């Protein structure tokens, strides 16, 4: 502690590598543009100037899965679209997370029938579920911040496979 005070004057901070990596991941997490249905409108509203998601690091949305960190599945996923979602998820490079936005992506929502996948976690592993039909922009931001807290708690030993 005494060392840190002296180092602070010189402009040096000491921390753990895990914390540094997680901090840098959460501060600039660019989601993949995956608005499928009505939740996409609320996602756009959350990204726009009134409820700004750029404050939380989601500066812009990437259209390409190869350049994005989290995937916000916004909207109902139909059975025809399900293999496409899986393929896009596979194309995302590690580290990747998934936010299932809205009721349809979490559990099938109001659509309990043959054509809609009952919850996108039948196809891809989901980290954060945001409830709402559609969730307000503040609710989506709360979901994003919950994802950040999850990322901040990640340890290297959990990420190593095998």
């Amino acid at each position: 502690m005494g060392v840190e005070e002296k180092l602070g004057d010189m402009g040096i901070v000491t921390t753990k590598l895990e914390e540094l990596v997680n901090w840098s991941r959460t501060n600039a997490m660019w989601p993949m543009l995956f608005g499928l249905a009505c939740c996409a409108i609320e996602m756009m509203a959350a990204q726009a100037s009134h409820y700004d998601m750029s404050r939380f690091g989601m500066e812009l949305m990437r259209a390409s899965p190869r350049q994005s960190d989290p995937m916000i599945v916004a909207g109902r996923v139909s059975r025809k679209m399900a293999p496409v979602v899986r393929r896009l998820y596979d194309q995302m490079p590690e580290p990747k997370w998934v936010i299932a936005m809205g009721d349809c992506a979490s559990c099938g929502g109001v659509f309990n029938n043959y054509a809609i996948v009952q919850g996108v976690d039948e196809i891809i592993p989901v980290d954060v579920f945001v409830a709402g039909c559609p969730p307000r922009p503040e609710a989506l931001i709360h979901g994003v911040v919950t994802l950040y807290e999850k990322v901040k708690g990640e340890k290297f030993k959990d990420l190593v496979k095998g």
Partner: protein
Amino acid sequence: MDKKLEKIVQALQENFSSSIEEFRDEVHVFVKAEQIVDALTLLRDKYEFELLSAMTAVDYHPQVSPRYHVVYQLSSLAKNVTVQIRVPVNGDQPKVPTATRVYEVANWREREIADMFGVEFEGHPDPRRILMPVDWEGHPLRKDYPLGYEEPQFTFNFDEIDLRKPYAKE
């Protein structure tokens, strides 16, 4: 019915020996499946029904013959009238000649009816499924198709449904 429609409906009745039903000021004309292309061509060319507003089908399930009615809703913008043509189709091997040559827009409408009801349109240039995935079996809008209902998870049956749900591992 509208005065302008009377002549048109009379012409249809003479040429195709079709029956009519009226409801308020709507007219439904029943045409047999083999005559439909001629009827549509006549309406489009002679009586100026330029627009095929809607094309759909109805399933009267417990009846076998006819089981489906394929419904064509034609509008004339010049005369401001609409008429509805119904084609009764049998339940086993339902086939109707395609209307694509008469109205281009019937292309996707017929694909939708073929996908959802299983009515085959002879001579259709692109007979693929349009709404369901390509390898889907079954025709969802028939009356004897199951809802595809998934049991809702409440607290008392949460665990048993949880075991059955196909979660993605990775």
